[in-house]
């Protein structure tokens, strides 16, 4: 079944979620949620407001322990690991939060050096060099390295946040609404950047977005969250065939059609 939320058992899977449940008091956000993310793909997660996209991401990256179910990342279940092993596992993914979540008391370059300082024992001069090429890799101008987050525009903050997420060369990247709040030109440039970085660094990317252009431009597969679980996962072409009112409304509505009409615009 092409639209199944889970992949066959022999697929090369980086994140495997089975039977996940998340509840806030009496309110159930997720119930019996299954999802697989294949190695080297960009998986887009969409869903209505309040469908629990961010909660799902927080569960995966370990900021919120789920009430039930298992999450296996890179073959390991963080819930069963000790603190040391969890730390080691966390080094292998990077997270870009919605507003960048940069530490406001540090410059951009120092922000990028924070994970290096925390996890590795590198000489300061070498860290500055490494932070330097990361700053350029995400397309920031050279003078941005010494700037403080409050001196940056929204788009630059996201790029700086991305550079920090990439500081330790992670295998996995989580992006929460990377293009929200950016103008269309910056958003398209950011989409481009994500795709290029994925190809050069061999990343697997888990991406939450509302941006239909982003979905069309860079996502290999899209998972739809609704009714407390993943309704379907597949390419956009496959999802267009999926008979569910929300999914049809989402992809075949006026905005969805507009994005579909020129899928090359962001490329």
């Amino acid at each position, binding site marked *: 079944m092409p639209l199944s939320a889970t992949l066959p058992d022999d697929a090369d899977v980086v994140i495997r979620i089975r039977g996940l449940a998340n509840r806030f008091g009496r309110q159930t956000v997720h119930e019996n949620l299954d999802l697989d993310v294949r190695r080297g793909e960009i998986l887009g997660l969409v869903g209505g407001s309040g469908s629990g996209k961010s909660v799902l991401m927080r569960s995966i990256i370990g900021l919120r322990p789920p009430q039930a179910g298992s999450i296996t990342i890179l073959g390991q279940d963080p819930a069963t690991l000790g603190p040391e092993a969890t730390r080691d596992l966390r080094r292998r993914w990077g997270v870009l939060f919605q507003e960048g979540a940069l530490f*406001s*008391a540090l*410059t951009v*370059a*120092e922000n990028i*050096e924070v994970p*290096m300082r925390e*996890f*590795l*024992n*590198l*000489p300061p001069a*070498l860290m*500055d*060099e*490494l*932070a*330097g*090429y*990361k*700053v*350029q*890799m995400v397309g920031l101008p*050279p*003078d941005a*390295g*010494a700037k403080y987050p*409050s001196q940056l525009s929204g788009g630059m903050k996201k790029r700086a946040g991305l550079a920090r997420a990439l500081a*330790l*060369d992670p295998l996995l990247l989580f992006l929460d609404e990377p293009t929200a709040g950016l103008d269309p030109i910056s958003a398209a440039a950011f989409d481009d950047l994500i795709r290029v970085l994925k190809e*050069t*660094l*061999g990343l697997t990317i888990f991406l939450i977005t509302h941006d239909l252009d982003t979905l069309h431009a860079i996502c290999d597969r899209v998972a739809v969250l609704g009714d407390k679980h993943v309704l379907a996962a597949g390419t956009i072409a496959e999802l267009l065939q999926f008979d569910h009112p929300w999914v049809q409304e989402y992809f075949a509505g006026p905005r969805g059609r507009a994005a579909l009409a020129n899928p090359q615009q962001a490329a």
Partner: protein
Amino acid sequence: MARLPAIIAAMGNVLDFSADQAAGGFTRIAFSGRLTMAHIAQVTDGVRAIAPTAPGLVIDLAGVERIDTAGAWIVHRLEATWAAAGLPVQLASASPEAQRLIAEVARNDEPIPCRPPPGRALVDRLERMGRAVVAQTDSIGNFIGFLGQVLVAAGGTLIGRRRLRGHAVIHQCEAVGVTALPIVALLLFLVGLVVAQQGAVQLRQFGAEIFTVNLIGRATTRELGILLTAIMVAGRSGSAFAAQIGSMKLNQEVDALATIGLSPIEVLVLPRVIACAIMLLLLAFFGSLMALVGGGVFAWVQLDLPPGAYILRLQEVTPLSDFVIGMIKAPVFGTIIALMGCFHGLQVTGNAESVGQRTTQAVVEAIFVVIVFDAFFAYFFSFLGYN
């Protein structure tokens, strides 16, 4: 035991390099193991210490198990250094992944400043001092402006041109006053107890223990009861005002109010000031009472003075003026606390750090000004003859 050397050898081999001569006299640097960020610190200094020598360099990556951008960076810098010396560099046995990563970091090789330039110590210090003076002066001006706005709003409410927001006042009264009752009761009860105990110890030396009641009655109703309640309210509610209004400012709620045509002073500040003034009056009364109770308990238990006699004695030695002076001061202190809290809340700009800073400032300045006013009142009333 036989396994140990093998393990050490394996650990030593996580990343290593060797330098020797290749064909044609080229220097050959061969990396082996994991050329990744976690390990490059072991080899960076070593490979960078090899000075460029003719005829050139061969970098051999045949033994590399894994490479990331940090490893690629080391290789690239090595290439760049030798190339800058005018010597040819060859890359041998690089995997496609290694080539891709090296090309990627090579594209992004420009020296980047990581922190702002340090600047000149003396000039910077002078500049900081100057800025602090200017900021302080600005702050005084802002406060006077704020005070004027509050007075205009209060005047407008008094003559009926503006509406008093009764609901907001009641709500704030509850937050400032009712919920503070238990903590004020406990605090002032203990203070009464302590004053009585310390007083009794000193007065016993003169055989004048009965004057402990004078001490409790006069000190608490006129000074301690009021001042300590005010400090408590500054800590509880002054900080809350600053933080609430500050986060509303960050959230643009204050702008939204102004856009709708509501005055933030009228909606946010005035109810808090009125509520805080009324509630500090009532709390101070209640607090003084609790201090008297605390003192009474001590007198009963330690001085064998029964409650009836204690109350009678209190009535004899505590002039009504002490109580009235206390009750005059309380609403003034309440107004000061609320004004400071609201003022600093409205001064919040930018980020969450500013909220914390302004909240601290609100509490510190409120307590400071309250104590200054208390000293003023003490002098003023004794000048009028109320000793």
